[in-house]
Each structure stands twice: as C-alpha cells, then as structure tokens.
C-alpha cells in the first residue's frame, strides 16, 4: 500500500469512528436531557411540598422509575461504545463474529431509524471465532449496512446474522431491497459481497482467518 492509499484508509477509518461517536453522543445527550427534566420535575414536587401541597407516593415512585430507566439506558449506550472503541485496539485480535455484529448493529440502530428502517440481529448460533482486524471488519459491514438501509423501503426491517458458507465466515444482511433501478447508491460498497437473486439478502465474505 502506497503512502497515499494509507492516508485515504486512515481518513476513512477516522470518518467511520466519527460517524459512530457523533451518533452515540446524540443518544447520550437525549438521555441527559431527559434526566435533566425528570430532576426538574422532582424539584417541582419538592417546591410544592414546601408550599404545603401533598405528594402522592405513586408520583414519586414514577419519577424514580423514570430515572432508573434512563440511567440503565445510558449504561447500555456507554457499554456499546466502549466495546466498539476497543475493536481498534489490535489489528490481529481474536474475536467472535456474532458478538462484533451485535455491537455494530446496536451502535447503528439510531442511524437507520432516522430512515425509518429497523436493524436487528438474528439469534446467535454457533460461535465463530476469528483472527484479524475487528475494526476494519466492522467498517466493511457498516458500509454495506448503510447501503442496505438506504436501498430499503421505509418501515423495513434488516436482520444481520453471522454464519458460515463452505469454509469461510460470512455476514448475511436480510431485508426487502428495492429494485436495482431504484437503488440510490449503486452496488454494495464492499468488494467480496453478493446480492441474492430474490434481492432479499446480501452476503459479505469475512476477510479474517479462523482462530
């Protein structure tokens, strides 16, 4: 790889990281905004109490549950971001494909929902342990996921699954693709990727060895 190619790869990798972290920061800001208002509601109730109003214990329980739901949600978002960030640690890491896919789908869900497309992962089957660069693989799958959800009709569901095909690991994305002439973005961006004849599945060959 020449210096120019290397620079382009680095920029593309940083752009991917930037898209993901910007999206996660939006999610966390939403949680923060919600907690801010719930705390304000609690202040309102306390102010009412000081001015002689009674507080219904059920109202307080409801406020408490709202806070718990939001802090739990924030913890899940932070956990996903942390696991995603660690995919860049080692370009020769040992990792499980289904686990990587779950991180990626979790992180992309908000982005696809902006296009009214839902992402989900298939039930985990056999564990598929690989050795290679999980961050680069995540980027490849991400590019195809974006292509898929921009090529789907709104209100579609895309299911992502890790699997094996012959002697290699693959990722399958299934959902209702639009007709070829309606596609806004051309063919899937990753190199080793096949669209099924019924246009309901794309299969991405995983460029990592078994571990």
């Amino acid at each position: 790889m020449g210096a120019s190619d290397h620079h382009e790869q680095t920029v593309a990798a940083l752009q991917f990281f930037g898209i993901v972290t910007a999206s996660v920061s939006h999610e966390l800001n939403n949680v923060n905004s919600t907690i801010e208002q719930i705390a304000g509601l609690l202040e309102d109730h306390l102010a009412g109490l000081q001015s002689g109003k009674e507080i219904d214990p059920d109202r307080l329980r409801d406020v408490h549950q709202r806070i718990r739901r939001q802090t739990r949600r924030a913890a899940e978002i932070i956990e996903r971001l942390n696991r995603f960030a660690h995919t860049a640690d080692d370009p020769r890491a040992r990792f499980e494909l289904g686990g990587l896919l779950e991180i990626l789908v979790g992180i992309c869900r908000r982005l696809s929902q902006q296009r009214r497309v839902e992402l989900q992962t298939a039930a985990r089957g056999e564990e598929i342990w690989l050795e290679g660069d999980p961050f680069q693989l995540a980027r490849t799958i991400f590019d195809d996921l974006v292509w898929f959800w921009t090529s789907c009709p709104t209100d579609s569901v895309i299911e992502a699954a890790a699997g094996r095909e012959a002697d290699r690991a693959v990722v399958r994305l299934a959902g209702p693709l639009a007709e070829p002439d309606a596609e806004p973005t051309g063919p899937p961006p990753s190199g080793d990727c096949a669209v099924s004849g019924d246009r309901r599945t794309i299969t991405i060959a995983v460029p990592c060895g078994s571990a």
Partner: protein
Amino acid sequence: MSDLRVLLVDDEEELVTTLVERLRWRGLQATAVTNGPAALELLRKERYDVVVIDMKMPGMNGLVLRDLIQRDFPAVRVLLATGHGRDSDGDDMDMPQEQDVLLKPFSIDVLIDRINRPPGK
C-alpha cells in the same frame, strides 16, 4: 392558567411527557406527540399557538415538519430543539435562525421564555 396552547414533538417520549407535566405545573396548556404526522393530525383538529419540534426524528425530520406547519398553519409559532449546534449526522440541513432554536438540554425557564417571546425577538 395561560391561554397559550403548546404542542411538543419529540421521539424521546419520556422527555416530552415530563416536559408536558412541568409546563402544566406552571399553568400552560401542553400536549406531546412523538412524530411529525401525529403533530400534523393534531394541528388539524385543535388550535395550538406554539409547536416545539425536535430536529432529529425518525421519518419526518423536524425541519420538514416545520416547513409543513409554516405552510398549512401560518399562525402557529415554531421552535426547534436540537442536541447540538449542528445537528446533521452528515446531512446538509438548512439551519434555522438562532432565536428559533433551543439547545438540549435546556431548562424549563428557557423553554417558557422562548414560548412566551414574540416572534423574531
């Protein structure tokens, strides 16, 4: 109770339901919905003076909803709420004037001040 009728539109359901409670606590008539089509449907049935819209919503985004409201309900004031100064996620968006935008998280006092503020101030 204020005569002002406020509609909040945000897909963060727990955020808008809490804001509705806080606005009602302060005597405003507030209602919330979680998407653009539901907001338009409600506007066809009921009178609202101010609509507060989250810019980033699945499906119909806040700017599209704002444009539709300004076209079909020109008497209704629209305020936009955003999580960041540039709320684009890579899309080019027509950023509105600062006086029409609330930056999240905002305090209830700032929200009420903007709701009560005359247009363009």
